[in-house]
């Protein structure tokens, strides 16, 4: 036998692979498998959906629009682009305890941070503290690259358009305003704060910025963003970091502060509150709205009922389909099986 094979040079290899006889699993879409499968998937999805829905329902959200388009709005006065350093106050009340930790967001609508050329308009090297790029910012930043031949630091449109409204939250306790302490630490990504964005290792920080100018729209240079905390300045300012992480969609919110301290560690108690807003950021030019959002979070993030509903719908669909198939199947098949 061996000898014979030697003579036949062209004989193909007789292996399962070459002869296309590899053992294989053939999934058969037969009713016996499909219908129970659909039922199982449907039940599982409904289960998950219910859990998600319940979780989502437990999350409290409070939104306050302060754009000031309406004339009766306290901020109407400030919405005029010509007014400078305008401060307005929004009052609101909470009926029940707003369970902590409460997250304090600001929100913008109709704001296209995902606009392609906007997104490209920054200099990552500069933002990582490379002094070389302080002098020569990347051309990506153009036209916010140089201001009167002086390099802009941080350059680019994203940095330039940084949100600069500031908020102070007061609880009205017996007519008196009690400031709610806002925690501005750790609101940005850990990697942004520790890895991606770095200040130049120059002390004091302002020396690094010699020969540069602040972005056009900014009122203060980058090294003075947070006068209260020297460690929160430059490129590792938390608000700056949050802003630099571009929102996915035109209606977005960004984390402003967390309420985790002092009397409010358990959450915001029921009562009246007053929000003092330093109204700086113009949004009327693009029909945008500004709002603040208080929300607490669950394991699955903020309040979003959609996912729960989606699971429920898909789960029910599966069940319905299995029933439809069962009916069709029963009608056409069962009589013949006997």
């Amino acid at each position, binding site marked *: 036998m061996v*000898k014979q094979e030697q*003579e036949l040079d*062209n*004989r*193909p*290899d*007789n292996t399962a692979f070459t002869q*296309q006889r*590899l053992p*294989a*699993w*053939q999934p058969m*879409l037969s*009713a016996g498998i*499909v219908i129970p499968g659909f039922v199982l*998937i449907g039940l599982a999805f409904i289960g998950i959906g219910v859990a*998600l829905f319940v979780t989502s329902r437990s999350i409290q959200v409070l939104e306050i629009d302060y754009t000031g388009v309406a004339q009766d709005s306290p901020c109407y006065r400030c919405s005029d682009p010509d007014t400078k350093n305008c401060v307005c106050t929004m009052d609101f009340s909470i009926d029940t305890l707003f369970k902590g930790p409460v997250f304090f967001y600001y929100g913008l609508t109709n704001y*296209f941070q*995902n*606009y*392609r*050329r*906007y*997104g490209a308009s*920054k200099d*990552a*090297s500069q933002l990582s503290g490379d002094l070389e790029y302080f002098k020569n910012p990347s051309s990506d930043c*153009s*036209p916010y690259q140089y201001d009167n031949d002086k390099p802009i630091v941080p350059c680019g*449109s994203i940095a330039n*358009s940084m949100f600069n409204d500031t908020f102070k939250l007061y609880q009205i306790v017996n007519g008196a305003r009690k400031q709610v302490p806002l925690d501005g630490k750790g609101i940005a*990504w850990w*990697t*942004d704060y520790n*890895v*991606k964005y770095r200040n130049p290792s120059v002390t004091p920080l302002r020396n690094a910025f010699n020969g540069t100018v602040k972005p056009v*729209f900014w009122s203060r240079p980058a090294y003075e963003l947070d006068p209260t905390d020297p460690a929160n300045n430059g490129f590792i300012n938390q608000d700056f970091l949050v802003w630099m992480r*571009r*929102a*996915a969609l*035109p*209606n*977005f*919110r*960004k984390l402003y502060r967390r309420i985790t301290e002092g009397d409010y560690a358990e959450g915001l108690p029921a009562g009246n509150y007053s929000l003092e807003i330093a109204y700086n950021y*113009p949004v009327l*030019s*693009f029909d945008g709205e500004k709002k603040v959002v208080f929300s607490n979070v669950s394991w*699955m993030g903020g309040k*979003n009922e*959609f*996912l729960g509903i*989606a699971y429920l719908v*898909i789960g029910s669909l599966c069940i319905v*389909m299995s029933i439809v*198939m069962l009916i*069709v*199947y029963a009608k*056409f098949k069962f009589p*013949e099986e006997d």
Partner: protein
Amino acid sequence: MERRSSEDTGTVKAPESRRQRKKRSKENKTRTVHANLLYDAANKGEENPNRHYANNKIKTTKYTVLSFLPKNLFEQFHRFANVYFVFIALLNFVPVVNAFQPELALAPVVFILSVTAIKDLWEDYRRHRSDKEINHMDCLVFSRAERRYVEKYWKEVRVGDFIRLRCNEILPADVLLLSSSDPDRLCHIETATLDGETNLKQRQVVRSFFDLDCEFDPLKYNSVIECEKPNNDLNRFRGYIIHRSGRRDALYKENLLLRGCTIRNTEEAVGIVIYAGHETKAMLNNNGPRYKRSKLERQMNVDVFWCVIILLVLCLFAAVGHGLWMFQYGDKRPVFDVLSPEGTDLSPIMSAIYLFLTMIIVFQVLIPISLFVSIEIVKICQVYFIHQDMDLYDEETDSHLQCRALNITEDLGQMQYIFSDKTGTLTENKMVFRRCTVAGVEYSHDANAKRLAMYQEMDSEEEECTSHGSTLPRRDSVTSHQSARVVLRSQSTKSHRRTGSRAEAKRASILSKHTAFSSPMEKDITPDPQLLDKVNDCSSQMDFMRFHSQPMSQLPSDLSDTIDFFIALTICNTVVVSSPDQPRHKVRMRFELKSPVKTIEDFIKRFTPSRLTSGSNSSSSSSLITNRSSNKGCSSLLSSPSAESTLTKLHEERSCGGLENAFSPVPPCYDGKASWNIEEGELRYEAESPDEAALVYAARAYKCSLVGRLPDQVTVELPHLGKLSFELLHTLGFDSTRKRMSVVVRHPLTDQITVYTKGADSVIMDLIKPPNTGNSKGKRQKKIVCRTQNYLNLYAADGLRTLCIAKKILSQEEYACWLQRHLEAETAIQGREELLFESALRLETNLQLLGATGIEDRLQDGVPETIASLRKAGLQIWVLTGDKQETAVNIAYACKLLDPEEEILTLNADSQEACALLLEESLHYIQAKFLCSSADQTTKAFHSSFAPFDLYPSSSLSSSSSHAAPFLVHRLGLVIDGRTLAYALDKSLEDRFLAVARSCRSVLCCRSTPLQKSMVVKLVRNKLKVMTLAIGDGANDVSMIQVADVGVGISGQEGMQAVMASDFALPRFRYLQKLLLVHGHWCYSRLANMILYFFYKNAMFVALIFWFQFYCGFSGSAMIDQWYLIFFNLMFSAFPQLITGTLDKDVSAETLQQLPQLYVNGQNSEEYKPYMFWMNMIDAFYQSLICFFIPYFAYADSDVDLFTWGTPITTLALFTILLHLGIETKTWTWMNWLSIAFSIALFFTVALCYNASCPTCYSPSNPYWTMQRLLKDPLFYLLCVITPVAALLPRYFYRACQGTLFPSPVQVGRQLDKLPADTRRNILSLSRVKVGSPLSPKPPFLSLSKASPKGCNKNDQRSITGSKTLEATQGHADEEKGRSCLSGPTDSEMHLSDLYTLVPSDIDTLPYTKDAPQPAEELQPPSTKVSECLDKTLEPSDVSLSGWITSTPLPTPADSVQLNLLPDGAPQCVRYTRNSEERLKPDHAVHPAHRTEQEVEQQLHTKL
């Protein structure tokens, strides 16, 4: 020195020759070759006239190191897609429109280009290596400096060099043979590398050098050769050699040794190089693989075009959207807006235009860049698997299927028409002598028939044998050669021994495969005892007469005919004799050295009466005529033949054989019978065609054996008479126009110049000398002719190939007269072929019929089964053969192409009008029959009234559509002969012909020329828009093979020309079944599914970004990171689809073969219909909507950032796409699992690494740590679960419904696969019984796709395949078979079943009595028919006219409708044909057409 000059000359050649060609195209039709030696020494080759010719260095590489990059890129940019992708990549370098990092955008294009480039480079390197190897082979070249042959590399050989070749050496260039060590001045070559023929070919030394008795001395050569320009015709070489004396000698292809051939049986040969290197015929014939575009690919290209349109629409939409978006802001500048670098604002219109370009970049993925590469990879894998298939491997010849065209594998699954050659394709082309007629007496060779039946049995036995895995001991091949044959010999006589015999036979056939056409079956012929007696009788009488010096003419004519018959069989051929054991030592029976008559002087010299009586006289005269050269022995190069040699010859002659003739005296050269027998056993015949070999072997069985063939002499061994040497004066070779061959010999016994002609009966019968009825001899002749014709008809009816043998005796004067003109023809350079042809026609007239032979060409194994199964697969099979009608029809019956139960339409017409009329009648007939059969169905009637004239597009062939039925239901066979076919293929008639032909179930075209074959294929392909496959084995099939969509060559017996032209080469016809039904089906469905999937995948991915545009101001922004975007296709989702595209099997091979009906799937392009592209697109858009909006809503109103949101979308899309593939994958092997796992793992690995690699790079996205964060987010997992499920739910639901409720035939097949093996076998055998019943002309499953409300599910495949089929085909409900699926046939089924049942049953009751001129309805039992056939068809020339109405033997009584026009149209027709014949053979004295009907009757009377 020589080396340098040779290198110089090669390069100059090209431009110069081109210029010359332009200027002096006329003069330059020839090439002049001088010997290099004359020029080498003197002035270093500068004046060498050969310097312009290409040298022998070959370079088949396309590139050099320098030119590789530019040239390869240039070639790659011929593909439009590549240009497109490069354009897009370059667009990224324009800042205003760029979407990605420009370098990154180049990556995929560069990747694709470099993959192809590396492939090209590797191929080129392999070519380079083989070139180098070939260029550095050694050969002996004569060097003037050293005055001897020195070893040189092949590449140093130049035109004009003298080369010495030794036995078994390969020829380095095309060499003109000048000298050979062989005493006959012959050189044998094996041309297997050129044309695959393994038999040895003889080549002859140029005549002028013929008589050199000692070694050829190049230094004395001083002639000039003038010959044709290099061309690629292997079988043609013309030119002449001009000697210094001014004498010219013609050169033939017999003088040329071609590059690549091997010298055999010849000790040594010397020649001069004529063509070298790339100008050799072998190299000119070497054209690379062909590029065809498959149907699927054409369809795909349409959809690629649609993709482009979709792309443009999307981009336009986005651009307009962006313009509007910009416009709404007006002058109010939003804070997030970015000004142009100059600080000015862009106008909305400008930004829209820029955006359009940007969007093209972003959406480029829609045009799948990797599609083309992937398809190529998949096809290569498919080709690999086809190559590897054990079932397509023929152990006997150790050959497997070859895919010569790499890119049309999927076309195999879409064939609709098969055009097949008969001989060698359906049959084995192993010709076996079966019966013969000599002088009007039939010898039936019953013992021989029994012997053949034995082989048949052995065949079937062998199958069992191999299935048991026979482990018969093999003897060593060399030593067992003889013994094996001995065993076989005994076997053939002892027919009882059966066990193991087939294995032996097979082994012997393996052993003897080096000898062409000589399987034991062909060699061992059991002689008919009667005939053997007669031969013995005859030869003993002749011996007696010779002994008593009586003139041979006194021999009784039947005896002389008998011996002449066998002599003709033995010598009228080109068979070469060699002895296998001592290859170098050829069998030599030479008694006289004499060359064929080449000059008039020669003729005079040889045939003057004086020569016969006085040798010395003639020799002196001959020396006077020819000898002027100095008498220097060996160096008398130019004299021919030299006086000395003539003298010696004559002396030899005298001393050896006496003066009378070349007849050899027995004792001196003859060592007695015993030794002779051994020698005979060792003789091997190498024939160019198997018929010849068969006849020679047959003659040997009657002790008439060919023992030696030389160019000028044939030696035959006859019983009692011993060896006779026939002086071979001329050989007029076979050609397909004349259909005959002749040899002119001088008979050694009678010394008459005799012409033996062997050829097709139709032509020979026309050339027979009309007997003079006056004398008894004439009457006898006439009787012989009549009887022979009868037997010929019988033979044909038995499916035998018939040949007629005839002879003619020429008088000296006649011969001289003919010779004169023949020599003129031979020496002509222009139009030599035509002149020779005419010369042959002049000679082959007034023949005397000797007899006829019937040779059986056995059907190949499994041909009927294959045809039946291919037909069940919905393939129309047409057989186009050059054979005569009777033979063809009988083979057609034998191979089940024609069914005894079906009607046969025979079209034989002799004029255009008659043909038109016939076609018209046939149409009427078909129509009438159809109307009858479905009179109650008005819709059908409607269709039928139009159908034959209406050429539906290919889609109408779809089996499920009822309106296609009129074409396919008819249980009709169409037989048409070559002449009628020529008329029918005329522009005016072709539509009608097609209408008739396509209504018939099988079509048989007989007597068709190669050109007609290709015209038929072309007609069907172009008019019916169907996929055609042509299969053939011989050179006459080449044109047909080239014309068809897929050409298949049978690589077996008859040379390689068909294989060279083919796309696929099969060792046997029956492999076609697996090739088409299994591999074709798989390749098609795999590739179709893969292409559809590709479109879906890309559209789905791109649509995700498109939806996002609505949320980013149509700014061309993408939430998917550019890396993912660019590598998604190339890396993350590439492998699973390749695996599925290569390995997926929708149905197992066994089921596909057992249920050929599944093939219809591919024929109707059911896997990839145009709407499917759009369905896939819609599905893609739906899925992308899901994949986009579920994350969208899940993250709505959150603080998610762009890429933290986009990355899950990418992941979801990947999961969805992979799961989609999973739904479409039918078989999951470990490779599928692995590839999917690998894809997912690769994505996450790349994503994690990429997201961790560089915090500041990859502007603008910079997804640093995104994936890592996502993996910690439960929401991400929740999305990953729900989105793919939601996205795939509709498709899965659809598939599930389809699979469970309305399974397509293919799905049923798949369900069958799942059943346990024995159950499946039961079901299949059940269904085969029914499906395969001869009554099913049409594939079953007709109604299955109609989704009848009674659709079957997995539990009753039995009823699906079994009873439903039955329902559809037979109509008779097979109640007891446990069918429960159908309580009653649905309406549509009713139609079909009605059709099927009515058609066959109505035939009998529907005599065809329409107003045809002479409708011949044959309803006689076959026995009477046969006898009638004998009587009626006496007149040979009228065979074509009267048709073969009566000569169709049908196994069972059947209806056959003959539509032959006779009475009215006949006279004109006859004249018409006669005229054409006249033109062809002007010398023909008596025309067959002169024989009137009366005469025929007379003949009849005389006979009776």
